[in-house]
């Protein structure tokens, strides 16, 4: 620091801890709710300290799920979510790298046409075109498959857009040098571009993994076999049992479990994530 002001530093720490507390409060409440029996969660005032039912609820959530949903425990749904999130993340990164490479490094007919065709898909969420997309997926026979769960969500240009930005910042000399070495386009792609975009790929992986993991309306619509259900969709369904009070303890336990994988991804990849994001955008 520029000058030493211990009081100000102490103040900063206190404020930061308060900030962390505010941010963490919802999770604390979630954890507390997940550690009490269901009846306790319908009685005012709700507890603010954990109860002794954590492992019972964990067992219910993992192995049975909410009563009557499907008899499927959350564990199975988590596997589905994982597969879906991985397919979305990997698939989207792969196709985006390729198309961004083509658009930035090649001159070819209809380049601009392809470019704009890809870019109109930017940002429009799947929810607003969900019924027509469903019909397409159904016609292709992809209901209740991992392909159907993931591929329609890959149809968006955000990743292509980002890789394009990254490639544009890579100095031209790299390509010239590669050419002098006699490297063809694919060699250049593998040996130069991919390593140079490593952090961006990592950042994007985090974003897309979370995006994929957190989908719920799409899985809800296209899956009708319980063994294809995903966990976030399960949470939403638990909230709305007809003419019954929600079982908050199991819902919160499921939510807790559902949050773990994406949080782990964010936390363990955070330095790459931060570097990859902030370096391109700034």
């Amino acid at each position: 620091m520029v000058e030493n002001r211990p009081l100000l530093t102490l103040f900063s720490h206190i404020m930061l801890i308060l900030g962390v507390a505010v941010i963490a409060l919802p999770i604390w409440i979630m954890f507390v709710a997940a550690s009490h029996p269901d009846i306790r969660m319908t009685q005012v005032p709700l507890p603010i300290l954990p109860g002794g039912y954590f492992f019972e609820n964990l067992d219910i959530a993992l192995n049975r799920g909410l009563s009557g949903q499907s008899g499927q425990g959350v564990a199975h749904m988590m596997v589905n979510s994982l597969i879906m999130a991985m397919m979305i993340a990997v698939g989207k990164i792969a196709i985006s790298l390729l198309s961004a490479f083509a658009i930035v490094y090649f001159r070819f007919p209809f380049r601009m046409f392809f470019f704009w065709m890809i870019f109109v898909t930017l940002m429009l969420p799947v929810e607003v075109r969900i019924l027509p997309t469903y019909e397409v997926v159904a016609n292709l026979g992809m209901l209740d498959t991992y392909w159907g769960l993931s591929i329609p969500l890959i149809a968006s240009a955000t990743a292509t857009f980002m890789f394009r930005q990254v490639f544009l910042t890579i100095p031209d000399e790299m390509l010239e040098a590669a050419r002098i070495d006699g490297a063809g386009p694919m060699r250049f792609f593998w040996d130069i571009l991919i390593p140079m975009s490593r952090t961006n790929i990592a950042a994007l992986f985090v974003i897309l993994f979370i995006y994929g993991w957190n989908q719920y309306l799409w899985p809800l619509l296209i899956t009708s076999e319980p063994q294809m259900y995903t966990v976030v969709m399960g949470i939403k369904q638990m909230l709305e049992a007809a003419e019954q009070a929600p079982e908050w303890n199991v819902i919160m336990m499921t939510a807790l479990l559902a949050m773990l994988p994406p949080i782990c991804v964010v936390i363990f990849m955070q330095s790459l994530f931060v570097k990859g994001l902030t370096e391109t955008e700034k």
Partner: protein
Amino acid sequence: MLKNVHFGPSVLPFLLVLPQIAVTLVFFIWPASQALYQSVLLEDAFGLKTEFVWFRNFEELFSDPHYWSSFEITVVFSFLVAFLAMSFALVLALLADRVIKGSGTYRTLLIWPYAVAPVTAGALWVFMFNPTLGIVAYALSALGYEWNHQLNGGEAMALVVMASAWKQVAYNFLFFLAGLQSIPKSLIEAAAIDGAGPGRRTIDIILPLLSPTTFFLLVINIVFAFFETFGVIHAVTAGGPAGATNILVYKVFNDGFVGLDLGGSAAQSVILMIIVIGLTVVQFKYIEKKVSY
């Protein structure tokens, strides 16, 4: 746009764009054009009877005051989310930048709400604020304030804004912190030698230098609030009470998916698509300038 140095024409670039073009055609252009077509139709839910009605769905939309109020609500909502998420993140980032020791720990502790699904975030917040059961509502009630977001539109709006902003603070914090850490220390030291205290320095030097980051985050946050908060609204208020939180994206979904008014919903999708394309072009131009100046 294109590299000055590039590969010559061959079949390779076509093969490279093929996967993305195929996915885009089948899963975006095709359904989107169906939406476009549906937007000029009057259709029953099962698609058994179809009538071509020209632009009537659009006319109905534009003459519907609730559609316009949904526009207003979306704008208000987006700015509130952006403002709350950014200001909270900025304050935390300024503090974290001050304390050299432990800023990484704080980052880890603050980053994870980003990973929480919007619908889970919504469920969590609605659970805390449930007028009877919610722990926060209970505390408020003890303080003499009766919270009821199911009745009070302002409270409902506050709740969805808080839940959405909560998710977004982490992302903003990362960018602000990175932005702060890239400010040359010599500048700050120079100011300190001139006698400027921490507060002065923040206002005179740090904030102006952060303005590109701030602008970038503003765009990102508004886009987030526009399009990615669907799950929050769905879990917290379902657009209510009395339409007070019925943002555009939610309305499209609700009219089409719940209300089965396919034509009206498709017309709204088309309008949204136009807005998105407009936003994309603007954002594109902006970032383009930044990169190739």
